[in-house]
């Protein structure tokens, strides 16, 4: 086949999200295609500029009836995507609740409150009251050895963004997963953070990377007053979602929807 015979639409494919028709470049993940189309797919472990890994599963969508992680699943031509169906929303709520209950997330005393993606995701998904799951209340060690950075592992949601940021952007490998199952946690490349080559200027330590209050920049706490914090201005996902999107970004939680 010669180059000239390639029709312009051979590089694009069609798909629908919740009934609305979109087109996207070929070879994208569902999430990237949705982002480009101005459709927000909720996510926690995925972050711009990092390789997606599909671990939090909050970006679960249905593609042609099968539940997949939007960040790692390639978009198929003609795919029918369900993003905001009740079933998918309930899965996402369950997953976000699991993350809340796995760690110790006490928003009122947390420095990340207001710019925490876990908290913002809970609001977006309408989780605003005590949930049905038991609290695991872990007692994981806090590593405050580094002069500029502290790690409160009790707030870690294992998204691994710091691992990928340190490895792929900073070229350092300060972090890596250690342990298995419910005992899995983020390890550092020495006996404690102070003995690694971690620096406050690393991308991994920037506010863009840790979605919660696990990586703490010492001496900078509570830098934004209430009303001026990141998610005080708009719900998580506002920057991706098309302003004319017919979906209401924040919806009051309706317990009847949950059943």
């Amino acid at each position, binding site marked *: 086949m010669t180059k000239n015979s390639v029709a312009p639409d051979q590089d694009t494919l069609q798909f629908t999200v919740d009934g609305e028709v979109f087109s996207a470049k070929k070879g994208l993940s569902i999430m990237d295609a949705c982002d480009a189309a101005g459709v927000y797919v909720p996510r926690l472990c995925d972050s711009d500029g990092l390789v997606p890994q599909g671990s939090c599963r909050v970006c679960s969508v249905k593609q042609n009836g099968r*539940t997949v992680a939007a960040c790692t699943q390639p978009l198929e031509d003609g795919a029918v995507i369900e993003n905001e169906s009740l079933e998918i929303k309930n899965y996402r709520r369950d997953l976000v609740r*699991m993350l809340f209950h796995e760690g110790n997330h006490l928003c009122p005393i947390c420095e990340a409150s207001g710019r925490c993606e876990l908290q913002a995701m809970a609001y977006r998904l309408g989780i605003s009251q005590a949930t049905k799951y038991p609290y695991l209340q872990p007692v994981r060690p806090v590593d405050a050895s580094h002069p500029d950075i502290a790690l409160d592992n009790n707030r870690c949601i294992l998204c691994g963004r710091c691992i990928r940021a340190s490895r792929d952007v900073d070229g350092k490998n300060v972090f890596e997963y250690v342990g298995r199952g419910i005992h899995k946690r983020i390890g550092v*490349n020495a006996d404690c953070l102070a003995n690694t080559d971690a620096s406050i200027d690393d991308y991994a330590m920037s506010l863009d990377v840790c979605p919660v209050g696990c990586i703490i920049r010492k001496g900078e706490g509570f830098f934004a007053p209430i009303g001026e914090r990141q998610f005080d201005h708009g719900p998580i996902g506002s920057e991706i979602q098309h302003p004319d999107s017919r979906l209401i970004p924040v919806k009051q939680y309706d317990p009847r929807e949950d059943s």
Partner: protein
Amino acid sequence: MEPSTYTQGIVQEACRRFGNDAHRMMDILWEVQDRLGCIDGQAMECIAAETGSYRVEVEGVVTFYAFFATTPQGQFIIRICEDIIDRHAGVEEIRAAFEKTLGIAVGQTTNDGLFSLHLTPCIGMCDQAPAVLINDLVVTGLTPGKVSKIVSTLKKSRNLNDIKPQSKGGLFKPGEGNNQHPLIRSMVKNNIRLAGEILLNTYSPEAGLAGALQQTPAEVVEMILASGLRGRGGAGFSTGRKWQMAAATEAEERYVICNADEGEPGTFKDRVLLTEKADLLFEGMTIAAYAVGARHGILYLRGEYRYLRPYLEHCLEERRKKGLLGANIGKTVGGQYDGEFDIRIQIGAGAYICGEESSLISSCEGRRGEPKNRPPYPVQSGYLGYPTVVNNVETLCNVPRILEKGISWFRSIGTSESAGTKLHSVSGDCSRPGIYELPMGCTVQELLDLAGAKDSACVQVGGASGDMIGRTEFGRRLCFEDLPTAGAFMSFTQTRNILEIVDYYMHFFIEESCGYCTPCRVGNVFMKKGLEKIIQGQGEPSDLEYLKDLGKTIIETSRCGLGHTSPKPILTSMKHFPLVYAALLKERPDGLQAGFNIQHALDESRIIAKRRSLIYDPDYSKSEKAD
């Protein structure tokens, strides 16, 4: 802190043996642990330096596998199999006997540095429970009396050989067949109760391989495709289709991996095939390699079966000598093939998840045994990025037989959708536990009758990730069309507590979840807590809905097969044994949450406040005086 020169020397030696290759991390870690007793921070740092990786990466691998330790272990590491079958066979007494004679609890090491005691999930000896591993040595059919003999012998001689089975005298007798081979010398029994036509029967060695080399690789793939052979690991994917896809992927190298990470609780058929039919397996791997164009093969052997390694290495060496591995395989069996193929053995280290094919590949690559994202599938991009065929031991053993006897012979056995036979590992409450090779499609009841399971009330088909069924389902057929199974078949009588079994399986899945994705890592813990609440008599009818909903979220959103099946013990037992649950659930008339125990909740406050509760402690005034 600078590592000691001793540690450094041993690590360097180990790393060099494997070419300082980080992809051989599993082998390096095994060797370091065998020589140093553990892999501590110093050792990790040295390994990282030698292999060009980071310390935390090494730590990530070490802490992923249950058989690797970061703190010093005893010379003899005793791992007690805590599987449900072993529990029913009295493993609590065995544990108590070990704890008493050693003076330590599970998880501890004796002060003299001789013994460490651990619990471990199914070690593949359910037909001869209770069983333990002492380093690589398997000890089965244990009694508390034998425990004290083992301990006193090892304390005296400090030599594991002294408790190895001996034909005359000695503490234990060797098992039958190849278990008596000088390179195995194990007390493990094969317990082959019924040999079927395909796998456990006699066969003409290398006839299948010779037949394959008479054809083109594509014809061999076509033949396996036409035979209808499906994966025996449980999922039942067409073997021929798998081979076809791997062969069709353009690549410089391709790999054939045999999955001998038989970790599903209650399964031990691969152990018997590895013991008795190793050559048939290697012949099958060679045919697969010829068919897809692979030069390299890996046998991934679970750490629990390390006792078979010297024998399997010997079999491989014999095959190399005979020209059945290496270059010029074709010449030996009279074909035209001038390609080469060889197999290495990769030892696992205690991780059920590595039975999942992409996790197994991660582990072979020297990494944490976590599943990979799909696509790409292993047949497109597997081991080190090359197209890789991963087949189960039993699947590969079928291959030479199909080549030898033909498609129609193979298809004449079993059912239309499930050709051939299936090996069943039968254990639990029955008089003849062991291995049964039956045509696909036999009923549960037929197998129960053969095994002498008279009063079976419940059968766990396919292991922890399978289905728990009751009497009304015993007419169902064991095949892909009806009740698929990876080979575990555990029978339980009415005297067994179904919820205890289910609770153990949930414990198993929590321990074995890799933790990569949220629903499997966290959700399974919540499933077990929900079940515990019911077992403790605090359940309400709404708890069943809670478990169903939570189970559905885990199944739908998990990343791999572990999470897709882990809620099944609860969900299938709820479906097939609803009355067991109903009997424990009560509606609370006072509207309080049944799971809430006010006395329990107050305990902590009493300690902090150093006084009792004015409202809830009737003897409040008395206690004031007492204090």
